[in-house]
């Protein structure tokens, strides 16, 4: 019984983490940028979905898509006007993106106030799966995560744009020599990743919460997943998301409920010390 | 097995399946100079990196003055009296010429080796004088032309009082006059019993300096002998001519 619960809840958790982490890994892999605004995109996705669906009565699915679209545009602007100019200095990128995500928190705080919000569920029924009671929305979020990541995988491995992305990830200079517009690749990556974060924000609103600071915790998780999986490795991130998702669930169920937040941090620290390239990374990113 | 000089025995180094050095073996007596040539990617710089401790050899042994240096860190290698320069110059960009040199003069090796009473400032000025950079001591490195940067590399190496210097293409980017001056400096070092291992593409000047030359190709030692022997060696000629245009070889001055 506990095993089944761990299996199901762990899968849901891993799915959401993967949705966030894969985007994060993609940005790092292609653009060599550690983008701490990723959590803010997740938060903005949730708030825009909330504003559209609850305040403006737009149908929920359209609201989520609207959130993704707006965040996509924001991400592209961010890349064009800010990150583009500071890409080469690691600490500037870290601090600037962090400052921007705090900025976003504040803007949202000023507009919506500090109260937590609720986004209605696409599927509001509760289902019983293998004897485990779970919100339909949670299962839906798992399905969406899997579908989105699979689609992304297909795009990257089967399309020309995907090939260009991979080439850029491998060696931006060589890619540029081969006629790939790497600047555009960076921008597209940023947009796609941000869209995935916004989608995650839009679907978790009914069983987690919508609050200005909601992006902070996921960014730490995404970060640890990406480190564990190997910076830049998308396959590695998926496996690492599963590892961390299940590890957290197992710790929560079997050891201590309060130690869950320690899991990603300890994983980061140990991985960095003993295998900085991550378990699936071939080489260090730096 | 001698207690003198450097002995490299069957050193092998691979990167993700690519063999950079394969079973490299040679030895060099104290006070001698040896040149290393080979096409681009032959493993010359990798060999330097392995000897100077920046890379660890997968297999093989390296002995300097009877001491196994295979697992030493770079600064420990310097401490034994082996200094190196880099093919692509690596100055401390935000610092002045003098400050660049003094970092090396502050190393334990330099402190230990210089005459009593001499300060690190004096050591630094001294070596800057030797490479004719003393008039530019306070200039920021970012303003220097390539020739000066090469000499700064050498000054930094000299400030550690080396008995053995590994020079990685010291002549590239130098003018004719500068090349003559550097050749003179190298001869001076030899007179002072310094051992020198030098990678150089400019064969003419190399052959005038080094009575012995090692040829690397695909990480293997292709030939080891006097310039005349090398020039006649069939496989050396094939290795160079087999590449498109004399890739990596510059026979002019």
């Amino acid at each position: 019984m506990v095993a089944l619960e761990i299996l199901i809840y762990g899968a849901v958790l891993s799915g959401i983490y993967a949705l966030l982490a894969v985007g994060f890994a993609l940005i790092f892999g292609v653009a060599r940028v550690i983008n701490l605004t990723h959590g803010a995109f997740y938060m903005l996705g949730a708030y825009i979905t909330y504003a559209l669906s609850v305040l403006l009565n737009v149908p929920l699915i359209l609201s989520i898509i609207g959130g993704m679209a707006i965040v996509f545009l924001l991400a592209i602007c961010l890349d064009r006007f800010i990150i583009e100019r500071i890409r080469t200095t690691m600490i500037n990128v870290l601090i600037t993106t962090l400052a921007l995500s705090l900025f976003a928190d504040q803007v949202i705080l000023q507009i919506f106030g500090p109260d937590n919000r609720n986004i209605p569920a696409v599927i509001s029924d509760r289902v019983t799966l293998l004897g485990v009671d779970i919100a339909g929305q949670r299962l839906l979020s798992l399905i969406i995560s899997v579908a989105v990541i699979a689609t992304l995988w297909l795009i990257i491995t089967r399309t020309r744009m995907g090939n260009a992305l991979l080439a850029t990830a491998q060696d931006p200079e060589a890619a540029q020599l081969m006629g790939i517009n790497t600047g555009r690749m960076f921008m597209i990556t940023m947009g796609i990743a941000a869209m995935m974060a916004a989608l995650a924000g839009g679907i978790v609103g009914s069983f987690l919460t919508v609050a200005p600071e909601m992006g902070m915790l996921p960014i730490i998780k995404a970060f640890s997943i990406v480190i564990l999986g190997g910076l830049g490795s998308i396959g590695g991130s998926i496996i690492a998301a599963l590892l961390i998702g299940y590890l957290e669930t197992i710790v929560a169920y079997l050891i201590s409920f309060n130690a869950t937040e320690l899991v990603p941090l300890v994983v980061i620290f140990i991985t960095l010390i003993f295998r900085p390239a991550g378990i699936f990374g071939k080489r260090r990113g730096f | 097995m001698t207690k003198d000089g450097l002995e490299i025995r069957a050193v092998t180094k691979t990167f993700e399946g690519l063999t950079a050095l394969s079973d490299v073996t040679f030895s060099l007596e104290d006070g001698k100079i040896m040149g290393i040539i080979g096409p681009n990617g032959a493993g010359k710089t990798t060999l330097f990196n392995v000897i100077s401790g920046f890379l660890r050899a997968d297999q093989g042994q390296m002995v300097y003055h009877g001491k196994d240096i295979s697992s030493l860190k770079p600064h420990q290698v310097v401490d034994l009296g082996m200094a190196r320069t880099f093919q692509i110059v690596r100055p401390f960009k935000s610092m002045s010429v003098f400050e660049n040199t003094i970092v090396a003069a502050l190393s334990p090796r330099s402190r230990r080796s210089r005459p009593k009473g001499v300060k690190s400032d004096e050591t630094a000025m001294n070596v800057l004088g030797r490479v004719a950079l003393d008039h530019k001591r306070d200039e920021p490195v970012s303003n220097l032309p390539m020739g000066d940067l090469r000499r700064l590399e050498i000054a930094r190496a000299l400030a550690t009082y080396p008995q053995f210097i590994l020079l990685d293409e010291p002549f590239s980017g130098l003018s004719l006059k500068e090349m003559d001056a550097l050749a003179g400096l190298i001869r001076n070092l030899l007179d002072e019993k310094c051992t020198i291992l030098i990678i150089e593409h400019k064969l003419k000047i190399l052959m005038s300096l080094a009575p012995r030359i090692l040829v690397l190709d695909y990480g293997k030692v292709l030939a080891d002998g006097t310039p005349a022997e090398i020039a006649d060696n069939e496989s050396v000629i094939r290795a160079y001519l087999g590449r498109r245009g004399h890739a990596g070889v510059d026979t002019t001055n």
Partner: protein
Amino acid sequence: MAKKRLHHSCPGILMTTLLCFFGLLLFFNSAYAADPVKIGIIGPMQIRPGIAMKQGAMMAADEINAKGGILGRKIELHYADTEFSPEKGITALNKLAVKDKVEVLIGGMTSGIVLAQMPYLSRYQLPFLGVAVASSTLTKLVKEDYDKNKYFFRVGILKDQLLAFDMVNFIANYVGKKYGIKKVAILLEKAKWTEGLDQAFTGLFGKFGMEVVMAEFFEIKTNDYSPIFSKVKKSGAQMTVEVHSHVSEVFIKQYYDQKVPLPVGGIALAAQSSDFWERSGGKCVGEFTSNFIYRIPITPKTIPFWDGYVKRYKDDPLVTATGTYDAIYVYKDAVERAGSFKADILIPALEKTNYVAALGTIAFEADHDLKYGPDYVAINWAQWQAPGKVTILYPEDRATGTVQFPEWIKLPQK
């Protein structure tokens, strides 16, 4: 080019700015007449309970000022944000005490912050009427070192042990008796004030003939409660008791989602606010909640206060709003009895308070704790019911309806 020019002019501009900063700082003189009585409102001003404090304070101040103020001095309110951190709480207190030169502090939320602020009260000789702090340690400190800590009074809510007692009383004597519930699982937020509660519960439930089969602390920022609820389901408990003073939407949403078949309720500050139904997406259906006041005639002042507040702010008053509102009146009452604003004279007068407020009749124990009981201050128990209304259940003479459970709730007998 433009970048270069910027670099050239920057040093000058920056130096000037810097000098201006310090210049302004030194010559900034706030030497206007100290005519009004300055009251410092201190709390987490960015979040709902803090905003409610501010609103309650403004309402009281406006009413009092309209009638001529306190001993002829108009009230001037000053605010400082504790930002939910003890460190910021200390800075905020310093600002009110030293910069604004307030004569009394009203507010306070989260006992840990007030505990950190305590040493400063004697430094500045500032009375502090604590509105939303429950830890019994606070008044224990008053008892242990009266001279140093006499400045603190608990006004707005009861201390943790009494909260626990009142809650256990409701669960045992009302819900428990009615539905045959004997075993409870207690889930507590990890905080200073719940530490006291945890100890109190085990003994109390036993005294009322009930059994605590599980007691677990969770962290304030918990995001996923599924493991804890799954443990509750297996614990054999017949009811879930919750205790938290921070965000509790996630808790109740996931409780609903996971179809935990047990009645749930307790002390949850967030669940007291009127839009909790909407904020939890209606998933708080069936949750027992409590509040010190509802729109019922606890005292003659309760309903006028409630209506006035709703009219002014278009929102039901939170417990922090009521507490702050009443605290200002308690202060006024004591000042008028003492005939002085001076802390040394005021504190004995405050100790003798017996004031009929919106919350109930406010009086203090010897250790400056709020007196508890039907004649003084007590808690009202209620339930969230579809379609989004709060039905008052207990004490039974104040009830506005009866218990209704959602259909998936399993009860021991019915």
